[in-house]
């Protein structure tokens, strides 16, 4: 990205260092699954978790475009950690999007002070967590699936339904609140260290000040941009994965690939087919990142406008983010599968774990269907209609 400030450069530099260190054992940790405790702690210590928290509450007051550049950088080394950082940033921001100023004032200083990582318990597809209204707050019972980042988190961003009225609400609770069990049972083919398993709630108290309901009482276009945030985070995880894959492949081809027996060249890195394929892969990745960078700037403007964001601006953001997301997803799928063609048969050995790139991308490109994102964009191009806000558009 162009036009970065000195401060942003420092953040990105930190992210780069973290990413390089994460890359070293990413293949091994992919095999093991579970929680990357040590790596999460390294992120905690870096201070990057506070990037989006306003300065008045002790944070860095950074921009979303910076947070996304960090996501991309981390994902280059390890897509799971890029994901965890991105979703942490989303949940922290959700308070600002859907909650009150008082809730920011309450949670943000705590988060900064505790170097807190925020996790997820808010999958909107299934109404599996119910709240029974109390005099103050709710009593929560049920389960939430796809709880990315819930293991080793300090806070959980959750969604639940009022058992009586069906009302959809959000909330934030400390992860160690009595009655919460983070199952840590995520075992998928990719993004294996994102801890995206189930979170159980048994008679969990959520206090009134922890219940997020301002978006219900004072709905604005701004209060619905969470969908775009989650989509653009994933976009940057895909792009980071794609560049990470190209980088690993480049190292491999340059040092290990043997020229093909009828190639007539002395080094694989002079093979005309391999050269053009590297061009093709990199150009695709670069186009994806350029498109995502444009969307990030639109997001920065929207973030700046905050509650003043118009419906049209919200729609414009959603369309550009959907476009960037589906392009990056398809591109990353293609790249992470084709890198093997420039490395050769021996690159399948488990010691390298190069298949993790494809498995990671394939797993999280399924977050919501690419085809419906194409439709969202197409409906705007053809009919000038912005998407009706939902958790994915």
């Amino acid at each position: 990205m162009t036009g970065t400030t000195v401060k942003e450069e420092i953040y990105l530099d930190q992210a780069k260092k973290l990413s390089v260190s994460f890359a070293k054992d990413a293949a091994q940790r992919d095999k093991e699954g579970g929680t990357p405790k040590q790596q999460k702690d390294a992120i905690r210590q870096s201070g990057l978790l506070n990037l989006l928290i306003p300065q008045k509450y002790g944070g860095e007051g950074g921009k979303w475009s910076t947070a996304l550049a960090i996501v991309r950088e981390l994902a280059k080394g390890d897509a799971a950690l890029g994901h965890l950082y991105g979703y942490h940033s989303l949940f922290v921001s959700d308070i600002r999007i859907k909650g009150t100023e008082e809730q920011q004032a309450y949670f943000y200083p705590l988060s900064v002070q505790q170097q807190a990582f925020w996790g997820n318990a808010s999958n909107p597809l299934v109404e599996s967590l119910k709240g029974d209204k109390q005099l103050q707050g709710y009593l929560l019972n049920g389960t939430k699936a796809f709880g990315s980042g819930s293991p080793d988190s300090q806070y959980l961003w959750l969604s639940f339904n009022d058992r009586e009225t069906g009302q959809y609400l959000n909330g934030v609770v400390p992860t160690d609140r009595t009655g919460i069990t983070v199952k840590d049972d995520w075992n998928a083919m990719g993004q294996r260290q994102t801890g995206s398993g189930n979170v159980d709630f048994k008679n969990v108290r959520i206090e009134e000040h922890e219940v997020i309901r301002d978006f219900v009482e004072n709905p604005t276009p701004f209060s619905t941009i969470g969908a775009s945030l989650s989509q653009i985070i994933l976009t940057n995880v895909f792009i980071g994965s794609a560049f990470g894959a190209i980088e690993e492949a480049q190292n491999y081809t340059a040092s290990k690939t043997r020229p093909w027996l009828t190639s007539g060249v002395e080094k694989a890195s002079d093979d005309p087919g391999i050269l053009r394929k590297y061009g093709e892969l990199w150009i695709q990745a670069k186009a994806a990142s350029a498109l995502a960078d444009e969307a990030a700037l639109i997001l920065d403007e929207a973030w700046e406008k905050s509650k003043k964001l118009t419906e049209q601006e919200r729609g414009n953001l959603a369309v550009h983010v959907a476009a960037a997301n589906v392009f990056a997803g398809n591109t990353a799928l293609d790249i992470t599968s084709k890198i093997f063609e420039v490395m050769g048969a021996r690159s399948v050995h488990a010691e390298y774990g190069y298949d993790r790139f494809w498995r990671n991308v394939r797993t999280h490109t399924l977050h919501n269907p690419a085809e419906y994102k194409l439709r969202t964009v197409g409906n705007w191009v053809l009919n000038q209609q912005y998407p009706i806000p939902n958790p994915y558009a």
Partner: protein
Amino acid sequence: MNNTQTIAASQEKILELANQLAKEFSKTAVKRDREGGTPLHERNLLRKSGLLALPIPKEYGGYGACWPIVFKVVNIIAKADSSLAHLLGYHYLTVCSTFLFGSTKQYKTFYKETASQQLFWGNAFNPRDSGLKAVRENGRLMLSGSKSFCSGATDSDRLLVSAQEEGSDEVLLCVLPTHRAGIVTEDNWDGFGQRQTDSGSVKFEDVIVYEEEILYKAAEEQKVFPTVRTHLAQLMLTHLLYGIAQGALEESKAYVKAHTKPWISSDVEAAEQDPYIIQQYGEMSLNLHACSALIEKAVTEFDHAWKKEDALAEQQRGECGVAIAMAKTFTAKTALHITSTIFDGMGARATSDQYKFDRYWRNARTISLHDPVAYKLRDIGKWYLSSELPPITPYS
């Protein structure tokens, strides 16, 4: 029953047998993909089934099945488990290599003992690895060194071995019993795909080779026929890829119908009514159908070429190679596309480790790297543009 009917009935029996085995294998395919290692139980089922003797002529105790049937069997197994199909296909390739490279006496002996004892063949043949040397010492031929990518060597009864003769450019081919002193099959295959093919290395330490084990025909370079071994290998790989694509598409279809929920903004009642899912399955099944048509053409050409034996001309060998290159290239591309695209229809929950649906992609990706698709396209292009036949190599 007349003769044609008899053949048809016996073919049906063979395919039925293959389907039964495939069904059995599919029950544990996920578990075995997770574990890797050697599928001893399944290898023994293959031994017991009698299918190891499938292409061996009846006069030597086999089924005498023609190549189209042999490929079909490999394909059926590949749909359920491409590792086992790989082992079986390479077994056929290896046994029948003795017909190509051995004397009449040799291949008869090998055919007979394979059929009567249900021997499983493996290989230590990788032409890109010159790490195995043959040395004559006191009139005795000894092998020392190692070979990589030796699919199916572990738990095999016979090995087809290629070695570099010391002090010459010559490659020596021989068949050895796997238990011969000095041969160690190493349990070091750890590819992310084709996990139970045991495609690791084999070590040789002062391994004696007897005269009758050496396949001398290999050196007679003027002959075209033996070089169709390449075609046979390429067609085996093609059928593996085709089976993987078929298996992936079928299994994903079952999943979509049983588990996938319609998308929130889709306005349909079942996932299989989703216009985008329908469109994707339309495209995938169309491409699979094109694979089948191309493979059928290539198999027919191969069958003709094989039957020519020593009368096979370079032109026919080359044109058959182009047809195979086309089938393989297209099938590899299709298999990679299908094994990745199936997830779009199935959705996020299909990534759960319990299903191991990613094994299809991992298997296809692994097999498709056997030799570069780019060079297959080059062969096809040179043939189309300049009527140049593909160079005769272990891969084309």
